[in-house]
């Protein structure tokens, strides 16, 4: 089944520049229904109000990190199956393992390009 490009995507990053870059890349890939959140807490609140077809989140944010958001999402009755891609500069093996154990769908290390984002999104939500 082809991916619905009108799906709601939530981009979570404390840097507005990075949110803008990811949003722009998503637009290039044909995804226009993109919402932004500035930290894990803001994102979780938005997800509860309006579930997303995909969450693309940074890790290192204040006050709530991307890891905490991931754990909250995976523990939530209705949000637990939300595809979740971590996009972060934290690239130590321990980080990848911890994120995987917490249920991350895929992991992108910054800096990244449009091709990497497309590949990881495809592996998570399917071909588009």
């Amino acid at each position, binding site marked *: 089944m082809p991916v619905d490009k009108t799906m709601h995507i939530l981009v979570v990053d404390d840097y507005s520049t990075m949110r803008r870059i990811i949003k722009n890349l998503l637009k290039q890939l044909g995804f226009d229904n993109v919402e932004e959140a500035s930290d894990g807490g803001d994102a979780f609140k938005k997800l509860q109000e309006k579930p997303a077809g995909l969450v693309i989140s940074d*890790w290192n944010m204040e006050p709530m990190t991307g890891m905490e958001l991931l754990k909250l999402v995976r523990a939530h009755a209705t949000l637990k199956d939300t595809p979740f891609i971590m996009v972060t*500069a*934290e*690239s*130590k*093996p321990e*980080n990848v*393992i911890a994120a*995987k154990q917490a249920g991350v769908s895929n992991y*992108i290390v910054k800096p990244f390009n449009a091709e990497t984002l497309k590949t990881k999104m495809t592996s998570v939500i399917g071909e588009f």
Partner: protein
Amino acid sequence: MSDMQSTLGRTLLTSMIKTREKKGDITLQDVGGIFINMASSLNPSNSVADNFVHQEIAKLAKYIGEAKNEIFAIQSNAKAEDAIEDASMHLEEVVKATEQATNTIMDAADAIQTAAGGIGGEKEQAIMDKTTVIYDACAFQDITGQRIRKVITLLENIEDRVEKLNNLFGTEAPKSDEAAPADIKNLDPKAVVLPKDDKDLLNGPQLSGAATSQADIDRLLAGFG
């Protein structure tokens, strides 16, 4: 100079010469040791002057001991020299990264100007104006680069001073208890022990030489089956 002061001066000098002959060098730690020996050889009950000198030597020895402990504390808290070197390297990476990004932006602006060259009229002018604004904004790299390099120089100076203090006090940095990084290519993801608190996983970007590549991360994720 009183007889007692001359005697003390000679004793101090002789002890320092002997130490130097024995070790080839003399550190503040050695001087502190000599003071302590001298203080214990004096009898405070002998005279007021003896008592005064005894107290002054004891104060000096205490001061040297405290200074030495402070140097140790700096090292054990932050492994000062390593931390300063690490901070300098991170700042150098910032300069390199902004330089690369700025060049990419300017290359793109250059290409836009070339492509817009044949359009003509107001549209071409508007494009040229905006690309000029991009070029202007890219000047930030030069300014921030210079400022960051100033901080790097300052950090290097501090590192140099800390090293000199270490040599002066004869202290040696405690050995790091940090485990050597595992070879990610042969890493068993199920065997890795993670810290109890997620906050301990936040290290920020790794230096380019030490950073894990996207390909290695993909391999690691695939290892989970």
